[in-house]
């Protein structure tokens, strides 16, 4: 589509920023600054590919899910993750189209490790409790970051998020239902659950990203706030997660592996032990415990099925 006619670049930029400030939504064919497009592609492709990679750890538990109802629930959840990936990749693909890129390029970026995915999906799942915990707390954390972007200035992303968040409510309850059965179950089950929390806690804190770019050397939070894609900072989101979930974890008689964790009544801020941010960098750099295994699985599946795509590319 043609750019806004008769305006200089800076006028276009000003009118674009005004639209954002007025709460107007930007659509895929609208004029947008290159930086806006770049920031969106980076953010949404990572979000989308994380959903696609995130299907893998839970998929490991689909056949093993204990009970017909559990099998059905987790199948539906993994399907939704792929579905969220689909929605988000479509948003990204439309943004990339003017640059001559499509889904095949996104997959290539993942395989060549130019495109990263969320830290949590690099981790190993050990027991059925991990499958429950992912639904309860990982999806809980995801709901917090995603609802923070429901008002995003980019219309297609905001609409996809609205749909995704609605489905995440099911995911969280699916997780809670698994967790509740374990928490109210026998000793083995409770131990399994506590063990899962102990192992996943640092990953959950890392999920929101570093407080500022000083921590790890890079953070895209500034640009996303400038363009009203999100409103809260990484740390604000993490605080909100702690406020919502710490009491719930404790209410089930479970403990959190951080003896420094406390809510400061005066500052209204959670104090907690920082996760190892060096490790975080390694993990998202595809050097986590399961990073290469899961990437290899994706690469192999993609290559193995290439004939199907080639056959139908009439």
């Amino acid at each position: 589509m043609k750019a806004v006619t008769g305006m200089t670049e800076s006028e276009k930029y000003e009118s674009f920023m005004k639209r954002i400030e007025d709460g107007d939504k930007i659509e895929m064919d609208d004029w947008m600054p290159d930086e806006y497009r770049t920031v969106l592609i980076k953010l949404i492709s990572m979000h989308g590919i994380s959903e696609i990679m995130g299907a893998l750890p839970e998929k490991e538990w689909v056949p093993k899910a204990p009970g017909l109802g559990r099998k059905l629930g987790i199948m539906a959840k993994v399907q939704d993750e792929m579905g969220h990936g689909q929605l988000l990749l479509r948003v990204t693909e439309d943004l990339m189209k003017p640059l001559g890129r499509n889904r095949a390029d996104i997959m290539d970026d993942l395989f060549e490790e130019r495109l990263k995915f969320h830290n949590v999906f690099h981790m190993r799942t050990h027991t059925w409790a991990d499958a429950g915990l992912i639904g309860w707390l990982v999806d809980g954390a995801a709901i917090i970051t995603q609802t923070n972007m429901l008002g995003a200035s980019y219309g297609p992303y905001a609409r996809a998020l609205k749909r995704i968040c609605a489905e995440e409510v099911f995911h969280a309850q699916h997780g809670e239902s698994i967790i509740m059965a374990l928490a109210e179950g026998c000793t083995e089950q409770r131990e399994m659950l506590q063990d899962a929390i102990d192992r996943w806690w640092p990953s959950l804190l890392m999920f929101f990203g570093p407080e500022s770019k000083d921590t790890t050397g890079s953070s895209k939070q500034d640009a996303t706030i400038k363009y009203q894609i999100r409103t809260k900072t990484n740390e604000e989101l993490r605080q909100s997660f702690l406020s919502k979930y710490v009491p719930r974890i404790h209410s089930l008689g479970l403990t959190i592996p951080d003896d420094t964790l406390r809510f400061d009544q005066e500052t209204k801020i959670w104090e907690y032990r920082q996760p190892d941010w060096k490790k975080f960098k390694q993990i998202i750099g595809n050097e986590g415990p399961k990073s290469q295994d899961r990437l290899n699985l994706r690469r192999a599946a993609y290559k193995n099925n290439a004939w199907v795509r080639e056959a139908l590319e009439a």
Partner: protein
Amino acid sequence: MSGTFYNEYEVFSKRAPDKGFIHHFSLTAPNDEIAKVMAQENFLRREPVSDLWVVRRENILTLSDGEKQTLQRLDNKDYRNTKGYGYLRKKWRMYEQNLLDEKEIMGWAKE
């Protein structure tokens, strides 16, 4: 770069026979038949569907920036709405009659 496997399709559905079509999201597919068998399960897994449209995006006519300017209009068209004839309520009352307003007239369907 492989291009033609990823044709873009927009998906629309009706919740019930008496409802209009609404737009959902888009999907990519190698051809029309495959697009059709994937549409409902991608976007309508939880809601009732009484009909489905799957449309190739290239067949949708869209408006350019300039053309979108044509969507604007002045707010001086009360004469197209009942709002422009609101004084009738008072008039009819003088003749001891009620105004046949939208609520009243649409209600006749149930008589």
